[in-house]
């Protein structure tokens, strides 16, 4: 009994255990449900999975199924970020415990019952429990926002090397707070249309209605919601990585710019899509997104400079090659920031090009081609977020030596290979005709599948190792149960 109790305490009471459970569940869900579409469907794997697991897939409900699938994965990702925030930032113990309990029960409900409802027939009790799960997560978000209140003097920043106001308000904490607050508010933009389901609101995927000249207010609300939520998840993760790397520095203006950027993108940007400001919403988003990207750039400059300085410490006149080696020395620390840079080639750059040349190029393509570009765009962004989490997780579980390098570089190289291939695939109409595309499509598909497939294999190996570790009397889990993320800020 004690054996189970100890493991349970580790998995559901410690930060690292909670993160492990969520990553394992996301990995399982991705591996299983990823078999139902794309090349896996093409190879016939989907039919086998449907048969073996006795799934009940109704053709007319595909969009609804996918929406629940996205939500169940996103909720687990939000839970991981919440565990990290509550592990990294100071807050009252009551809030920390309450937030974790609520969000854990919430995402487990959303994932288990949501997927049960979506893929195994329509038991409406499961749907109710799925909604209950989402509600718990919402409430956890409200509590987290309260817990992060930056104007509590207990959390004022006394160290002047960190971003702070004259009175001492910790700007980093304020950024966490603002992101949490806006995430909670933005969730409502999805919840409200959802509550009108089958009462004036019908399920749709945003990429399918993108070209329709007239959209309903609720459609705009959902489109705004999905953009906001993904952006906020990415911004929150940037904040988390910044905290992990102990983001600070001498040029105070840079720090402020970086921290404030998150406010700006949220406050100025995305809500406009859903309001009467819709006609100029994109302009507002650009205004908000620019400082957000600037903020990420500040973090990258800070981080890379730090890695180089640490790496060449002791060398009197380090050369370029030594600096370069120092930069790449630790893939788990270099990786998250590199992925933010790489994102500019595969997501932001493409998105900006898309926006600038929309009418001249992309609206000349058929809608289905535009849809490929859109879905590729946000799939890559989501996957980049996942890889950054996995890289940080590698450090969280204390990978060292060759294993650390192998794990880190495998994630960076395999994912970037896949993302680059997706980017070529989604933009292929710019340089190849429909009639002659097949060899190119085959190649990028192989590279994409290889990259993502091997990435999942690496993750599976780590998860199996962690599973086996749980059976050890004095396994790694014992040390992890006691450690908090705030103790491991680099």
């Amino acid at each position, binding site marked *: 009994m004690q054996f189970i109790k100890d493991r349970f305490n580790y998995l559901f009471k410690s930060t690292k255990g909670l993160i492990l459970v969520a990553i394992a569940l996301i990995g399982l869900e991705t591996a299983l449900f990823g078999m139902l*579409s*794309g090349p896996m*469907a*093409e190879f016939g794997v989907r039919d086998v999975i449907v048969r073996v697991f006795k799934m009940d897939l109704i*053709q*007319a409900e*595909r*969009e609804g199924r996918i929406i629940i699938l996205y939500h169940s994965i996103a909720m687990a990702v939000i839970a991981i970020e919440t565990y990290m925030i509550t592990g990294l930032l100071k807050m009252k113990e009551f809030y920390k415990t309450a937030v974790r309990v609520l969000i854990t029960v919430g995402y487990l409900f959303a994932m288990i019952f949501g997927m049960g409802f979506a893929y195994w027939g329509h038991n409406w009790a499961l749907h109710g429990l799925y909604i209950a799960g989402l509600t718990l997560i919402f409430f956890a978000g409200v509590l987290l926002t309260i817990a992060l209140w930056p104007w509590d003097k207990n959390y004022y920043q006394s160290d002047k090397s960190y971003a702070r106001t004259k009175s001492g308000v910790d700007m980093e904490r304020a950024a966490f707070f603002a992101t949490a607050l806006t995430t909670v508010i933005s969730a409502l933009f999805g919840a409200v249309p959802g509550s009108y389901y089958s009462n004036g609101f*019908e399920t749709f995927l945003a990429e*399918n209605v993108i*070209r*329709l*000249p*007239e959209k309903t207010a609720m459609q705009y609300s959902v489109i705004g919601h999905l953009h906001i939520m993904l952006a906020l998840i990415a911004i929150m993760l940037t904040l988390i990585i910044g905290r992990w790397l102990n983001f600070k520095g001498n040029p105070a203006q840079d720090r402020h710019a970086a921290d404030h950027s998150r406010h700006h993108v949220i406050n100025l940007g995305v809500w406009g899509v859903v309001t009467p400001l819709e006609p100029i919403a994109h302009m507002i988003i650009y205004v908000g997104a620019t400082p957000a990207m600037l903020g990420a750039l500040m973090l990258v400059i800070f981080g890379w400079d730090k890695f180089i300085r640490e790496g060449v410490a002791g060398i009197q006149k380090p050369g370029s090659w030594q600096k370069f080696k120092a930069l790449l020395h630790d893939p788990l620390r270099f990786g998250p920031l590199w992925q933010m840079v790489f994102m500019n080639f595969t997501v932001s750059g493409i998105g900006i090009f898309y926006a600038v040349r*929309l*009418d001249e190029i992309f*609206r*000349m*393509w*058929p*809608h*289905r081609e535009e849809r490929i570009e859109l879905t590729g765009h946000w799939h890559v962004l989501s996957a980049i977020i996942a890889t950054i989490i996995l890289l940080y997780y590698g450090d969280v579980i204390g990978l060292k030596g060759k294993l650390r390098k192998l794990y880190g570089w495998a994630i960076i190289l395999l994912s970037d290979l896949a993302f680059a291939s997706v980017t070529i695939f989604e933009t292929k109409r710019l340089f190849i*005709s*429909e*009639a*002659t*595309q*097949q*060899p*190119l*499509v*085959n*190649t*990028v598909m*192989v*590279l994409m599948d290889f990259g993502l497939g091997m990435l999942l294999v690496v993750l599976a190996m780590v998860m199996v190792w962690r599973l086996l570790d749980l059976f050890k009397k004095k396994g790694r889990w014992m040390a992890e149960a006691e450690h908090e993320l705030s103790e491991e800020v680099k």
Partner: protein
Amino acid sequence: MKRAIIVSLRGAFFATKQSLRTGRLLRAWSRYARSARYSTIALAMTLVILASCAPMNLNAPAPVYDTGVDPNAWATIPAGSFLEGQFDHPASIDYDYQMMVTDVTVAQYVDFLNKALADGTLKVDGDRIVGYYPGDEFHGAKHEIHIDAGDYIIVPTNDPASRFTFGGNKFTVKTGWENHPMTNVSWFGAWTYCGYNGWRLPTELEWEKAARGSGDDRPFPWGYDIARNNANFYSSRDPFEDMSAFGSRTTPVGFYNGQTYGSYVTLNSASPYGLYDMAGNVWQWIGDVLPGFSDRFMHGGSKDIYDMDLRIWVRNSATPTYYSPGVGFRCARNP
């Protein structure tokens, strides 16, 4: 120019030779490919990337099958109600109408091109055939483009993916593709063909009813599920596709009628009103012109798309000048 290329090549050759002589390149290579594993991975990656540059034979031979389905046949769809769209909204069409049992074939369209070119309905304009369209009303909506009265592209004359050739004054069907759906035809080309014959393009509602029937809420013309031998879609493994080479190609109209072609067994996939290929093979242009929206809709999915996009209500759209090897059409008429 030629001289510059020769000088550059010569320079590169001597530089490489010199490097090889000093062993620099070999040493560099051995540093990076110290282990056999790295070389194998590098070789595999190179091969994969080179494969993407392989030239494609757009006129690779295709099997020739007679499906027995008459492309000149029409099906009558009676007036009445049916369930429209993904969410089964009750809808009604209060008149009888007819739709072609199959997509317009390459042979049918080439006949039209020759006739219409001869009588002046169409004309040659550079590397395209153009025809007159009276224009759309402009509403100034976001992303709307002006479509004024004037000549617009019907078909391109020099696209290697077309299943016809143009000799300057006469069109000819490429051998073996006579009974395949006409592709590489713009919306203007489809609109003109139907109008030339006294017919019209179907409205979206007419198309959906013809595909679904009026009895139930089926997502596919033949029923509720889709198998690979129901329709021609991406990687459906029909005898006309080779995903390792040229990809998916069109199947003859009416191919999925329950017949066996060689060793390939098809399922009878006609719609409740007896229309073939209402899912898969080629997208079909729809006649509707929406105010403030210059795109034209297409329905039915195509050989280039996964099975879920063959569901009856799934839309595609493009500017009316767009043409592709995956887009065709069929006409409607009042009886």
